[in-house]
């Protein structure tokens, strides 16, 4: 655990010290915050507290943060020639891997929690009706668990890709394709299936289903994928394969 904390401490230092461009800061911090903490709760109204919009934020935000930070985990160390020295140190494989993964998961999750709190403030300021409004317990638990699971899933995929990428750019592009293409294809696939076999459409399948159960199955599926990806990353973390030639 001490070793994992050491790696996380370095990652934290690294992210604070690294100078990104203003555009990158704008795109990774300002835009998501403005969108999910200001615009969406403003526009969605009470639906923000009870329904899909906040879940959308809790899905998209950790994904975006992971997509920006995790490609750097190993590909960045490799690109900056710091990886061989790190691998030559006494740090166990698990400490390097889980230290980097845990840091990004916590970062993505913490950012989502901050956005949820900020969005609540926005909602109450804009839609004030005389008493303080709060998320329903189902939405809050769903949001917090979903953001944690999405963070773990995207970090698992990111680490797996970053381990074998020669550059950060290569890792970022591959990860973006891996994370964004499946959801982008899902819409058309559902539309085609719904047309061809209306009884297989999501509306029919979910009609009358318990929303808590739907959320549980959805989160459970993503959690399973996250665990598989992190397990694969651990299995593929071999010092002898990380020194690329």
């Amino acid at each position, binding site marked *: 655990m001490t070793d994992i904390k050491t790696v996380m401490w370095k990652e934290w*230092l690294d992210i604070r010290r*690294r100078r990104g461009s203003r555009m990158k800061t704008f795109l990774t911090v300002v835009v998501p915050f403005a969108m999910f903490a200001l615009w969406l709760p403003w526009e969605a109204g009470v639906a923000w507290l009870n329904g899909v919009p906040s879940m959308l934020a809790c899905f998209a935000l950790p994904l975006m943060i992971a997509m920006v930070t995790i490609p750097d985990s190993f590909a960045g160390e490799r690109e900056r020639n710091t990886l061989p*020295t*790190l691998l030559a*140190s006494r740090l166990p494989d698990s400490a390097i891997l889980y230290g980097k993964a845990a840091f990004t998961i916590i970062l993505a999750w913490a950012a989502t929690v901050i956005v949820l709190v900020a969005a609540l403030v926005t909602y109450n300021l804009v839609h004030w009706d005389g008493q303080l409004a709060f998320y329903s317990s189902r939405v809050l638990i769903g949001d917090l668990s979903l953001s944690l699971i999405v963070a773990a899933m995207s970090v698992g995929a990111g680490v797996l890709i970053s381990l074998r990428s020669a550059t950060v750019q290569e890792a970022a592009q591959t990860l973006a394709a891996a994370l964004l293409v499946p959801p982008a294809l899902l819409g058309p696939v559902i539309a085609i299936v719904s047309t061809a076999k209306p009884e297989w459409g999501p509306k029919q399948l979910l009609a009358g289903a318990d929303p808590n159960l739907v959320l549980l199955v959805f989160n459970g599926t993503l959690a399973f994928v996250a665990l598989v990806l992190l397990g694969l990353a651990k299995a593929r973390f071999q010092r002898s394969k990380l020194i690329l030639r």
Partner: protein
Amino acid sequence: MQYAIRIKDFTREFGTVRAVAGLSLDVPSGIVFGFLGPNGAGKTTTIQLLLGLLEPSAGRASVLGFDTRNEADEIRARTGALLEHTGLYEHLTAEENLEFYGRIYRVPASERVARIKDLLGRMGLWERRGDRVWTWSRGMKQKLALARALLHRPPLVFLDEPTAGLDVVAATEVRSELAALTADAGTTVFLTTHNMTEAERLCSRVAVIKGGELVAIGHPDELRAGSGARVEIVGDGFAETILEKLRSQTGVVEVDLLNERLVIDLAGDVDTAPLVTLLVSSGARVQEVRRGTASLEEVFLTLMNEGEE
């Protein structure tokens, strides 16, 4: 004698390329051991194999008594390394870089602070400890990387060309820091270099590899002595016929005329006097005769050229 490193028939192949081929050698504890070879000779690969960062295709090695195949964690816990690149986090400060590696090696907090101060102070870097490393010169970075490798007082340090690419002043500084820091602690140093001056100054034993194979090993003086002697003769009248006569003498390896200086390379302990007599009797005028052993660089070049002519 205690050995820090023992290598037996070490081989590493990358596809069809043999980077290290049947390497066998022992490195005694407490010395600076020079591992010499040209670029691509297999020096870096050997270090990576010894640290367990690569697996050998064949052969075995033990480092500080631990097997590189299945006890690499123990090896890495007890060694320091300055590899091909400094491996410094350039946007962190010097102090933060050392702090990170101090934590990695579990150096207690109070000792860590004192050790960082001591190392940076001795290397003349203390005043710049708060600067981000990317603002530093290459020589300063190399010294910092050396400090990082020695931070946890390892009994064995691997240094992969620590002065490569440095100017003369910076290289001399790094060399003297290295000599002072390792001599104090009795650390074993496995130093790869293709700088023969460095090897001659620092190493009490050297091994030369070429194409992944060991071609010579011993004390630098032994290697120089084993390669014969060099005689320089100043004078004139060194006609080509005379040079031919010299070349036909037993023990004469090579004869060259360089700026009116006759340079004769001799194999083993050949007597110089008959050669001078031969020159004088053939009509040459001899003003001065100097006899010495070849430098390590000359030995190295000879070894590198063997089998290629």
